[in-house]
């Protein structure tokens, strides 16, 4: 069964325990950052920061929402990165986590380009670089233990469980308090669905990548199609194409060669005939 996490933005108080727990569990070093005039610190993922809290003040009518969004890899049901990686360095495990195999990666960064959520990061400053992103604590999840961030959350804003059950729970919370939540479970359908799910007091469209003049991580507006839909069609056409193209080209070769030979034979015959005619005339 696919595991997931339900992130309830209405319950998050922005304490960043999850962010710290992530660093601690994964042995990720701290970063030197600069103040951007907002609380986001750092505002974007890096090879050392796989999970972070984003801070927004969203005005709706006369209401002001303080929204804290925990962001990390969404762990898609049909991940673009997994389909894109030419050497299979990324893998969607049966339990849900999308994991990365250091030993396979060639550093082409197609996973980064193919990710609709702009999640994977690359070690730009290293001579031997790898891709880095949230692992959904696959080491813990495979043992049935919740991810480090979920463990650290003091307000139950993060709930770990079976994705299907979390969807039911999310719907229940939204229906129970329609005045508190917008009617949208982010991740239920986005890009074919993700293991991580969100409910929020403000529309996700208001939590885009650029807010308050800062460039952050955000919730892109995505359709329900998996991103590799057409690419997989194109790839499935390759084997028949190889056969068809080889047959067609060989056929054309044979055909034009035959025609060439035919033309040549006719030319020679014509030449002989002309020669004979010439002789007859002479005679």
């Amino acid at each position, binding site marked *: 069964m696919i595991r997931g996490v339900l992130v309830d933005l209405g319950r998050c108080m922005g304490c960043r325990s999850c962010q710290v727990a992530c660093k601690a569990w994964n042995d990720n070093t701290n970063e030197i950052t600069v103040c951007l005039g907002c609380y986001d610190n750092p505002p*974007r993922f*890096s090879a050392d920061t796989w999970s972070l809290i984003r801070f927004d003040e969203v005005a709706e009518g006369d209401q002001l929402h303080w929204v804290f969004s925990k962001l990390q890899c969404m762990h898609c049901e049909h991940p*673009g990165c*997994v*389909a*894109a*990686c*030419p*050497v*299979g360095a990324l893998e969607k495990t049966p339990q849900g986590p999308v994991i990365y195999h250091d030993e*396979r*990666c*060639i*550093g*082409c*960064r*197609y996973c*980064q*380009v*193919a990710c*609709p959520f*702009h999640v*994977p*990061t*690359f*070690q*730009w*400053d*290293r*001579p*031997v*670089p*790898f891709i880095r992103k949230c692992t959904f604590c696959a080491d813990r999840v495979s043992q049935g233990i919740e991810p480090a961030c979920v463990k650290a959350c003091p307000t139950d804003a993060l709930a770990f469980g079976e994705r299907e059950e979390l969807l039911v729970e999310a719907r229940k919370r939204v229906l129970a308090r329609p005045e508190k939540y917008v009617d949208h479970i982010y991740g239920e359908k986005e*890009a074919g669905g993700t293991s991580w799910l969100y409910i929020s007091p403000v529309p996700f469209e208001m939590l*885009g*990548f*650029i807010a308050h003049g800062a*460039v952050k991580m*955000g919730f892109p507006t995505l*359709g329900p*199609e998996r*991103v*590799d*839909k*057409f*690419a997989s*069609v*194109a*790839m499935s056409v*390759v084997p028949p194409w*190889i056969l068809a*193209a*080889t047959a067609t*080209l*060989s056929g*054309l*070769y044979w055909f*034009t*060669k035959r025609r*060439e030979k035919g033309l040549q034979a006719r030319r020679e015959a014509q030449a002989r005939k002309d020669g004979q005619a010439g002789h007859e005339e002479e005679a």
Partner: protein
Amino acid sequence: MTTAQRRQLPIGTAILGVLILIGLIVAGYRYANGIGAISNLSDGRPWGLWISFDLYCGVALAAGGFVLAATVYLFHLKKYYPIIRSAILTAFLGYLLVVFALLVDLGQPWRIWHALIYWNLHSPLFEVAWCVMLYTAVLALEFSPAVFERLNLQIPIRIIRRIQIPLVVTGVVLSTMHQSSLGSMLLMMPDKLNRLWYTPILPILFLLSAISVGLAMTIVESSLSSRSFGHHVHLDILAGLGRAIPYVLGLYLVVKLGDVLIAGEIGLIFSQGVHSVLWLVEVLGGVVAPIILFSLPRVRQSPRALFWSAVIVVLGLVLNRFNVSWLSLAGRPGIGYAPHWMEFAITVGLLSGGIMVFMLANRYLSIAHHAPAESG
């Protein structure tokens, strides 16, 4: 050769040598300090100049090799025999450029062979990797007789001649796969590539545009080498290539426009701001204009007009590949990208190396004036 040409060459060679050296130094700096040290690439914009120019344009501009190989060996159009070797050399060098650029662009280039043992059949880039490896090998074999002739090795020449047709068929099939798979790669980004360009038939558009630029690139490269090395290419040959261009480009235009029309996206041509401008310049300037030019007998009778019209096709293709892999492919919103000067240094150094090898090959090997071999 006149004395003026004699004097010119070493200066040009010296400049090329300096550019290659700068590229090598920058590459060395990159291996010691990481890609971030020499580029403006970032997590918000992981691909840049190297992928757009060296890979996307490099592969397309090498298309002359498979187009001419098919024309001469598979379709038996013997008229084009005199320029086949030059076209294959250009393609071979184009592919070597791609490989060398990847040695800089890949994070761990020493693992470039991993695609041989770790397979992901769902990845268009997996297909690309295999096509690059196999077709570069095919091109090396196709070009090898020029080297064997110089070394006077008869046995390898005979072997190559015997396997020539299967070799050419393999090369053409690989090329059609490779050209189209570069389009398939972009299919993975439905939410990032501007809708004016994103379409499920991108692989077909990539193949058609590659064939047309293969013809144009052959005209450009034959004209240049006939000027530089004093080979006289018959105008008739180049005009023949030029005559084919309106048909291929015309088909490309019909498919491209038809796709936009059927998708009901014709309105996007005017509503996408700078992207609309890019699309219009690409289609009107790079496709429609050359269709008209190459249809004019006056153009096809003048070497200069042929050359410049072919240059327009090449520039139009470069703009197309830049559009789909860079200018109209969204990165993280808010993250900008302009290439670092050292990114240019790598690309310029690689190009200089390619030109240098092309010049040396034309000087020491029989590229243009070789007697037609017995056809297979």
